[in-house]
């Protein structure tokens, strides 16, 4: 009995590490992403037209607008992320300040969680009964991580963090939170102990860290957009801006900080890693860059530079690169799937796709 529980926990933890911020059902033998993935389409801010699409790996088909079509109501305004866990999908709808919990298989609405949430970004299950939600706060500055009880589906605690907490990642009994600055600026990654739900320490990295991944050796990589200063005419004031950076964190301290020489809005973001855990991918100025975990400098040339991507993911099953293109915030976006640099598939999705959540 005890060993079974231990095995479950072990499976659970390793699955999380393998696919970082994503999400798995620990009782399931099939790996995360085997069934397919959800695409999060942000929609136009203030237009209440965010949506989710689902890519079914068995049929190879993308179905759009699955929430509204199933439930007969709009999903809300500006979904930021989706996380699948234990048969349910948690759609984090930032501007609507809510989490829509749906059945991951038939997309039917289970519950809307809105009490105690202000400006949520990402959700990460940390145990079979508990999840963390990063939250910018109503002012975009007062950051916190909300503790969600997965049984009662209610917020039980709020943990104060740096500004603009964004992506979270779990390793062993600690959660690492990238404080992206929100409407201000920050340069830290908070570390939360999941047994006490308290911040134990933080790591200083480049300005405005937004996403983070562990590599095969257990080192933490953090990408930061840098901080932008503007001239009076709103062109970027390069002298007073800071560069986008990629930090390597070894044993809780920053061991290396690689930087991108060009300063271009909106900076580097969407850090991802391959299946083997030895090659990182990120977006800078809309292009996809690839860098080995053993590299000491960042590449000058993009891996995929002919598109302008708004979101990025690496398929944990096939290692394919999934690029999300948002031509604007009023017309349908597209998903481009690459086998290394070769475009293999494209799908039209909802408005402004910003990322995917694997099922």
């Amino acid at each position: 009995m005890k060993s079974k529980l231990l095995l479950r926990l072990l499976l659970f933890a390793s699955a999380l590490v393998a696919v970082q911020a994503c999400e798995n059902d620990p009782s399931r033998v099939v790996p995360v992403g085997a069934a397919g993935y959800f695409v999060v389409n942000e929609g136009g801010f203030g237009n209440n037209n965010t949506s989710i699409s689902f890519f079914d790996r068995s049929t190879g088909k993308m179905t759009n607008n699955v929430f509204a079509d199933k439930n007969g109501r709009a999903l809300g305004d500006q979904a930021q992320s989706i996380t699948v866990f234990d048969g349910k999908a948690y759609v984090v709808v930032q501007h609507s300040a809510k989490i829509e919990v749906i059945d991951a298989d038939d997309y039917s609405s289970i519950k809307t969680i809105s009490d105690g949430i202000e400006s949520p970004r990402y959700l990460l299950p940390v145990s079979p009964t508990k999840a963390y939600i990063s939250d910018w706060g109503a002012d975009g500055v007062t950051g916190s991580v909300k503790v969600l009880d997965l049984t009662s589906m209610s917020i039980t605690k709020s943990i104060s963090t740096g500004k603009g907490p964004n992506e979270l990642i779990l390793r062993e009994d600690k959660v690492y939170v990238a404080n992206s600055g929100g409407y201000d600026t920050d340069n830290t990654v908070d570390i939360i102990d999941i047994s006490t739900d308290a911040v134990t320490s933080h790591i200083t990295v480049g300005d405005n860290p937004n996403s983070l991944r562990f590599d095969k050796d257990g080192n933490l990589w953090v990408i930061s957009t840098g901080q932008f200063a503007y001239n009076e005419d709103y062109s970027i004031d390069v002298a007073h801006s800071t560069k986008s950076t990629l930090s390597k964190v070894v044993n809780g301290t920053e061991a290396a900080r690689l930087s991108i020489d060009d300063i271009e809005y909106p900076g580097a973001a969407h850090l991802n890693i391959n299946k083997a855990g030895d090659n990182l991918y990120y977006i800078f100025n809309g292009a996809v860059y690839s860098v080995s975990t053993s590299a000491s400098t960042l590449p000058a040339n993009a891996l995929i530079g002919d598109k302008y991507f708004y979101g990025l993911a690496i398929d944990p099953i096939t290692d394919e690169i999934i690029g999300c293109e948002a031509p604007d915030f009023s017309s349908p976006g597209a998903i481009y799937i690459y086998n290394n640099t070769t475009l293999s598939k494209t799908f039209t999705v909802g408005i402004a796709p910003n990322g995917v959540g694997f099922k």
Partner: protein
Amino acid sequence: MLGFILSFDALAQKNAADTTTLLNEVVITNTRLQAYAIGHYVQRVDSLTSKLSGVGNAAELFRKFGFGHIRSYGVGGLTTPSFRGTGASHTAILWNGINIISPLNGQSDLTLLPVTFIDDVQLQSGGSASLYGSGAIGGTIQFNNKAVFNQGLNVSLTENAGSFKTFFHGLSASYSSKRFITSTKVFQASAENNFPFLNDNFNPPKKDVRQHDAIEQHGVLQQNYFQINQRQLLSLRFWYQDNHVEIPEIASVTIPGKSTQRDQFFRSMIGWNYDYKNGHLFVQSAQVHHMLDYRNPNTNTVSITTFNSIINTFENTVDLGNDLEWTSGANYTYEDAIDVRSRNRFALYTAFKQQSGKWQNVLSARQETVNGKLTPFAPSFGLQYDAFKVLSFFGNVSRNYRIPTFNDLYWNDATAKGNPDLKMETSWSEEAGLKLNWIIQGQLALFSNQVDEMIYWTQTAGKWSPQNLHKAWTRGLESMGTYRKTFGKVSGELTVRYSYTLATNEDGKDLVFTPHHESGTTLRLGWRSYYFSVTNNYTGFQYTDESNDVLKAYDVANAWLSKDLSFKKLTMMFMIEMNNMFNSQVSTRPGYPLPGRNFKGGLTIRFNKPINQK
């Protein structure tokens, strides 16, 4: 001659207590261009409608009485017209002949126009840039004041209250003699708009109350008219208004919004009309100052934008004999967006109107320059053929244009940048229709409007920027008919409006927020000094974005009951209004609900001391 005018006026006058005005001499004090709307579908808001909606703003007037399509962010929110499937910047909105569209954003919010400040509202569908200049692509709305001499002293007080802490206080005083009129109107309007609604953005749906949706407006309109002599009239108008609006969050957002907007404006104009033998001269100079202050404490945003415009018009109308009339004019407009740019616009326009037998036709054209750059040449031709006593045919074709706004050209911040190389939008607009003056009075028009070089904001390389991206083709049918009948002492009137609009872009995709079908049905009954009116407005489904999300079709019905009373020199009108009678759950756009069933009631007391007739 203007063709069809929907009118309950006859009925209203018949029952009106106040029939003492014997010598009402109405003088046209602005441009004569309204008389050149030959070949167009024109609607005029009649006096009873204005009377019933007298405590509202133009947005409510159009929404509740079903005059064409409007796009709205709820009761207190930005409301703009959409004629024949075109956008907010494709309608010219004129106040006594001057365009009050903001040169910054190309829009004018109809909620900022109190109906009490306006004597005459005319809606003209289709393009008419030859007469009214930039932006008159989908249609034109004209808000006019009238000078009525010989009315004596009039003082009127209006007090109204309604659901959701809605209040209106209005006071007006005027003195009108044979040669002189002075009139002052003030108003103060406020509403909390904290109405309950079922919020279905949650599972389970929750009973919610709209928050942070209050409005407060106050303003004054001062008018003076002076008949210098039989031939000359001087007019002077001054309008000041201050408007505070709380901008609510969309309904799916649980945390109340904090954004606010203040619109403060001054509009003043001086005009001189001179009648000479076989002709008429009109000279007007107007000034507009408008300050828009938008704040969002959540994002530390404070955006204050101000523009000043000076609009000068010189217009001459001459009767050439043989039923030929010729109007020509020059307009010089200076627009200054404070801290952004300014521009000089100079336009020449000319129009010939000919009437021969059963035929009437108008040929007109406009050429404008903006900072020395020529706008597209805008000609127009319209005609009407009165084939039978009860049936006329009409049609027109016009070329129209819109110059980009200051925001389109020069906007600059961290995430968006204007495009100074934008081209002007152009359009061709055609229509053909008929007017009926039989048992049923009505009009019907088939229209087509092709807009080219449409300006569209899009995101490239992380920044928003406008481009001349799209073409739009809007076409369809607009129609209305009225049937009147009297049963004993009860006068009845039934009006039905219906429009079909198909608006698509160059890929054949539907344009957003343009319902295919819209209709309105109004029944009015008058008995002694009671009036009853009920209107049902149907708005068909509409696409809300380019991924084919839709807003479902909806119906909203409103009813009014009023009673006139007179006592010596006092006239009183009591009014109650029930809006959304059937308590429909309606959103004007996704996440912007309208209130359920709600009420308004009040009275207007008017004191009249006629002028002593010698």
